[in-house]
């Protein structure tokens, strides 16, 4: 059997993502630079300039234009990808809702970064959470390898006949976008074959003329929006199926959630993104000392995999949900999502961490696990916030 991989290369998350895009060979990529996403389009632009991929690169004047061009290109019948971060995603949001509503399967890499103000270029999930009701499929990678693999999976999810929605593949700003790791790339032709040709039901440039983006009166808007929401729900199964196909072919399985050392766990942390690596080290250290702790990492955030998450939590007694974003005036997004769908026995607690790139060390994660040993009242705890009590150490 021919090798499907090229072997290990040392790449940043941004570079690995650009390789995935090169191998997918999108027809159109409208781009506008923004930190920390820039390495993605910068690397990809180099591939285009070097003739390694024949994508039409549209250099537009804003992210709003980038997403607008992406919607038009995707509906015209071109496989379309783009990338953004933070304020760029915020500027895209208006058109992202349109992309979802018009069922334009645009695939987008996001270098997750804090939102202004105050202005900050570092990693958190505020930008991604701004898109959480946009109707797009949202996936978050833990590391460069996942950023690459998920990007290769993304077109099949976006373009699936039951889905036809934009897919956002998030990777934490700097800690993934700019950090070099060993990444196992697939062979170009393997990616091409896995992704397949771009097919949507009603391309503007097809043989059959169509009207798109029409006004929907009260007699049809409601039905269209509900069907759009159902398409996003259907994406959970499609994600699982594409993940299974990817695993069968390439030997790496990426599920909607990852359960790490959850066997017999009494205390667990649930989180999203690159802090998973830090948390795994903390779990390993605590397990070595005989503590029954585990970790659940959420990759698929929209649609939210309530059932899979509940299964991953199993019979755990206390759960700390760590959000790298806030939802001022209520509990933060991931906690709220889990709270809304979880009917299991565990007590759920809400923590916020790492806003604007604030470091989270293994000791911080260990403190959370210690905190879970003691009863406490409801409320949000803020990890590593100056002036906040160092919980669990009293």
């Amino acid at each position: 059997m021919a090798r499907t991989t090229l072997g290990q290369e040392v790449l940043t998350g941004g570079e690995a993502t650009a390789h995935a895009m090169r191998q997918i060979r999108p027809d159109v990529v409208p781009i506008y630079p923004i930190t920390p996403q820039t390495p993605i389009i910068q690397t990809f632009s180099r591939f285009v300039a070097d003739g390694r991929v024949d994508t039409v690169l549209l250099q537009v004047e804003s992210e709003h234009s980038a997403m607008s061009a992406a919607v038009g290109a995707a509906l015209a019948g071109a496989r379309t990808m783009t990338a953004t971060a933070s304020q760029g995603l915020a500027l895209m949001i208006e058109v992202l809702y349109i992309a979802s509503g018009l069922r334009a399967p645009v695939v987008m890499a996001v270098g997750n970064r804090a939102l202004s103000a105050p202005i900050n270029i570092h990693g958190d999930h505020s930008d991604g959470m701004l898109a959480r009701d946009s109707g797009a499929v949202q996936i978050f990678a833990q590391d460069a390898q996942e950023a690459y693999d998920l990007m290769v999976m993304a077109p099949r999810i976006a373009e699936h006949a039951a889905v036809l929605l934009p897919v956002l593949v998030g990777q934490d700003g700097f800690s993934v976008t700019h950090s070099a790791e060993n990444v196992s790339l697939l062979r170009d032709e393997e990616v091409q074959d896995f992704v397949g040709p771009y097919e949507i039901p009603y391309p503007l440039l097809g043989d059959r003329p169509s009207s798109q983006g029409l006004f929907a009166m009260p007699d049809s808007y409601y039905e269209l929006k509900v069907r759009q929401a159902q398409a996003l729900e259907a994406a959970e199964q499609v994600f699982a199926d594409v993940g299974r196909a990817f695993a069968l072919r390439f030997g790496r399985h990426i599920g909607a959630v990852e359960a790490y050392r959850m066997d017999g766990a009494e205390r667990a942390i649930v989180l999203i993104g690159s802090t998973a690596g830090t948390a795994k080290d903390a779990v390993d250290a605590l397990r070595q000392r005989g503590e029954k702790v585990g970790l659940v990492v959420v990759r698929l955030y929209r649609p939210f995999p309530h059932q899979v998450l509940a299964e991953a939590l199993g019979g755990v007694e206390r759960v700390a949900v760590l959000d790298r974003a806030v939802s001022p005036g209520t509990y933060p997004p991931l906690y709220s999502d889990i709270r809304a769908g979880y009917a299991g026995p565990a007590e759920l607690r809400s923590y916020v961490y790492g806003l604007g790139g604030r470091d989270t060390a293994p000791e911080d994660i260990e403190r959370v696990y210690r905190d879970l040993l003691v009863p406490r009242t409801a409320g949000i705890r803020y990890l590593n916030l100056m002036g906040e009590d160092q919980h669990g150490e009293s």
Partner: protein
Amino acid sequence: MASERQDAFMRPGGVVLPGDVARPRTGGWRTGVKPAVQLEKCVDCLLCWIHCPDMAVQHKQGVFQGFDYDLCKGCEVCAEVCPTGAIQMVAEATQLDPRGAILPEGEGRDG
């Protein structure tokens, strides 16, 4: 809503294909007046047919046949362009024959 029509509007993204909507039913847009015709003044020039934006004016082989009130949105262009004054706007409640011809006094009051 007929199921055929519902299906047509329920494609992903609300895409509409040729033939889904033969003619928009814009008759509901009228706000109080509708065109009527004095057939004895009509010379079948069909300027009204040429100008009507909603294909509400009907003719058969060049002979004026009247208005389709499901399509007429009451824009008054036909009355404006009619060179003989055969078309005039009348109150919505005015009883007309099916072609839009003004009925002789005393007819149609019952129906």
